[in-house]
């Protein structure tokens, strides 16, 4: 029944391929609309009836987004926040994930469950107290105003992912490294980590994506022009007057591309991360 061989025209025009085409169109159509809008001339973006095929093609929206608005600034801000947070999450998460996965700690299951709770906690419940706290220490509108909360909120999920990977590494190599007199940190670094590289990629891609797309905290803590990240920049584009969709979508295309490339390269890791819970139960 499955994988039966199909002959002639049925090899191409069968139910599975037609259904796949529908799925393809379902995903691609809105994306097509966004990308073509970015490449329309600014006046054609908001023309009625809409242009289904942009003519003439133009990059005016892109130059606008970077010259009239400080979109380049937002990209730099997003990149700084996401890269530093991801690095911190990976370092702290590796140490904790290794401990939780490999070492006989009493109560680690409770800790893991509490961490899971924190990772699903609605952000809205902590935004105002964090805002007050950050204001007290003078951190509003700064990189650390986002880096520290992002690190804390995205660590639990990374610890879970990394712990699952650490549990799968055979113990023998670790034992012999210890016999050879390697310190625990050294053992993790040169024996265990190389075998959990896929796990690090998975946790890294997830954390980076989460930081890149986060909106509520970025909106609450960093509204000043010079520390806005991309989501806040896009949401507040053009101020309260006119939304210029051309600029928004030019910016969006630029914002979507790096993450799409990242996800494409590490698609196996992303899929295994999404399903880690399902596989490990």
């Amino acid at each position, binding site marked *: 029944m499955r994988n039966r061989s199909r002959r002639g025209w049925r090899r191409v025009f069968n139910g599975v391929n037609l259904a796949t085409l529908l799925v393809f169109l379902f995903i691609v159509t809105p994306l097509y609309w966004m990308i073509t809008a970015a490449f329309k001339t600014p006046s054609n973006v908001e023309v009625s*009836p809409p242009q289904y095929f942009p003519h003439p093609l133009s990059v005016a929206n892109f130059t606008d987004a970077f010259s009239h608005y400080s979109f380049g600034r937002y990209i730099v801000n997003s990149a700084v926040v996401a890269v530093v947070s991801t690095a911190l999450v990976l370092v702290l998460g590796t140490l904790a994930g*290794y401990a939780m996965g490999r*070492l006989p700690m009493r109560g680690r299951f409770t800790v893991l469950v509490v961490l899971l709770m924190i990772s699903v906690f*609605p952000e809205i419940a902590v935004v105002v107290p964090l805002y007050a706290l950050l204001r007290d220490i003078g951190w509003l509108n700064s990189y650390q105003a986002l880096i520290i909360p992002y690190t804390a909120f995205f660590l639990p999920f990374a610890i879970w992912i990394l712990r699952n990977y650490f549990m799968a590494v055979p113990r023998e190599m670790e*034992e012999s490294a210890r016999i050879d007199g390697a310190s625990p940190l050294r053992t993790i670094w040169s024996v265990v980590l190389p075998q959990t590289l896929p796990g690090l990629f998975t946790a890294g891609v997830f954390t980076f994506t989460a930081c890149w797309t986060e909106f509520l905290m970025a909106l609450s803590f960093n509204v000043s022009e010079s520390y806005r990240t991309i989501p806040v920049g896009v949401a507040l584009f053009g101020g309260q007057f006119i939304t210029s969709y051309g600029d928004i979508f030019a910016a969006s295309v630029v914002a*979507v591309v790096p993450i799409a490339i990242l*996800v494409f390269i590490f698609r196996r890791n992303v899929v295994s991360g999404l399903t880690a819970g*399902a596989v490990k139960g």
Partner: protein
Amino acid sequence: MSTSPVAPAPVDAIGRSASPRAKRHPDVFRRQQARLGWALSAPALVVVAAVTIFPIGYAIAMSLSNVTATGNGFSLSGLTGSNYSIMVQAPQWRYALFFTILYTVVTVAVEVVLGTCIALVLERLAAGRGWMMALLLVPWSMITVINAELWLYIYNPVYGVLDNIFSHIGLGTPVILGTRVPAIAALMVADVWKTTPFVAIIVLAGLVMIPRDYYEAAEVDGATGWQAFWKVTLPQLRPTIALAVLFRVLQAFGLFDLPFVLTSGGPGYSTQPLAVLAYNAMFRDLDFGPGAAVATSTALLVVVGCVAFIKVFRAQAGTEA
């Protein structure tokens, strides 16, 4: 395993005992290892606790006292339940609770059914599955704010593409986001587009793990395709689908970005979920006490739901094992 007192100490290639200390003093070694574990976890746990425990505690305190905003922070006074009674009596809160539940139930149901269908299709796909998977990840990785702007553009009553299509097929040009029911539907469509691929990927991973012999056995027994789906595929997929549902429900309950940008909660407050209500109460109306009550009770609902789900799921898994 080697650290367990009863297990024999592992032996390496040349026959030395791999952990001599473990052999002689298993308890000492074990305790050492546990201490090392806490030492390694400490930095992560301290960061998480510092940034989450204090704000959670403070939010609870805010929700239970009279909050006044002062020049340098908040001042809390007295222990009171008035924030919660203000909340419960506000029609906005009751509607937001209803809306959040409605939104969660409808979108998660649609996404699970649609996502399972997509996964079933892609599993049978002979070529190009990897490409389709990569494509599915694009909406998932997209910034929600951008997704909201995109659909705002599609729904625009003057130059939006949807109204253009509607007018071609004789449905006129409705102001989609200006009326309650269409606005709710429009919001759900935007969510379904972004999140169905996520569900599809999880379900697909569950699908490929079902052992082939189950299907062969079903075929030998003369099961039709439908019967095999209901009796083999679906029961095997249950834990996977349950996990996807849990993720999605928790996310949908904290819904903020999409309605904040796409509808601003409107028209009126007809697309205003709990998180947006809490945000508006605190940041726009400066009603910190009641806002904190909304936020805290929402978080409580999420935690209770999560615990209940894990309990039920574990109990079910237990009876089957």
